[in-house]
């Protein structure tokens, strides 16, 4: 079972990397972009028996290590 974790800065916390990418896209004349957020994706290969226990385990991982919840939000997707 695999889990995909996406970690992004919280809304309201300035994402400087996103701003820089947005600016670069503007320079390349891609003018249809409202906003850019840059985050990271962490893919975990798990031994969990079922989706619920996988989700519970990955939530714990996010809270303790994978995300800094002072500034970051995370989203977990379980894929088989």
């Amino acid at each position: 079972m695999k889990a995909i974790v996406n970690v992004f800065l919280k809304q309201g916390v300035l994402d400087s990397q996103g701003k820089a990418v947005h600016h670069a896209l503007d320079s390349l004349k891609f003018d249809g972009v409202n906003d850019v957020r840059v985050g990271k994706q962490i893919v975990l290969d798990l031994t969990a028996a079922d989706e619920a226990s996988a989700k519970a385990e990955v939530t714990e991982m996010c809270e303790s290590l994978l995300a800094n919840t002072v500034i970051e939000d995370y989203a977990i997707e379980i894929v088989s």
Partner: protein
Amino acid sequence: MKVSIIQFPGTNCEYDTQYAFEKLGATTEIVWHKETSIAADTDLVVVAGGFSYGDYLRSGAIARFSPVMQAVEAHAARGGKVLGICNGFQVLTESRLLPGALKRNEHLHFISRHHHLKVVGNENTFLQKLNKGDVVNIPIAHHDGNYYIDPEGLKALYDNDQVLLHYCDSEGNVSNPNGSVDAIAGVCNADKNVFGLMPHPERAMESILGSADGKAMLEGFFAS
């Protein structure tokens, strides 16, 4: 005065820190991160600067789980003094020993130069040798020094005199190199025994190096 200096894989300021505190008359010990205890007679734990665990994932995120950090947390919980410098500050915020978090510098550059700082709070051990409003010249060297805390947290910091230093120019006017909230360069915890700052006072111990202003900061720990 006994100072225990924490060393993770990737720490690179442990010997500068040792030099600085020994120059001021302390006895020091460098403590490898696999240790599960620190010397019982430790007056001050310093989490030194560098790139703990290569700053993989996030600065300071992995170091937080090193065995020695449990001993550091226990020392802090007993009221023992802890100072985190640069990467050490990041480690202490990741450990939740200090409020807030450090983000990538606003302009995304690694900054390495001398910068002025204004003393905001001196009602604490660390900055007691300085006066409020004093301007000191201390090197900064960081990529993730952009201090963030939410508005509610920021208010609590000011209400409790936990903001230690603002980035400024030589005249004391706000000059923010990295986008930190309110140009904050350093903070302490509510109990005022855990301190963290991005600048490096241990690199400003001799005028031949550009500044000796770090001495007045570190000397605070020697006064009762």
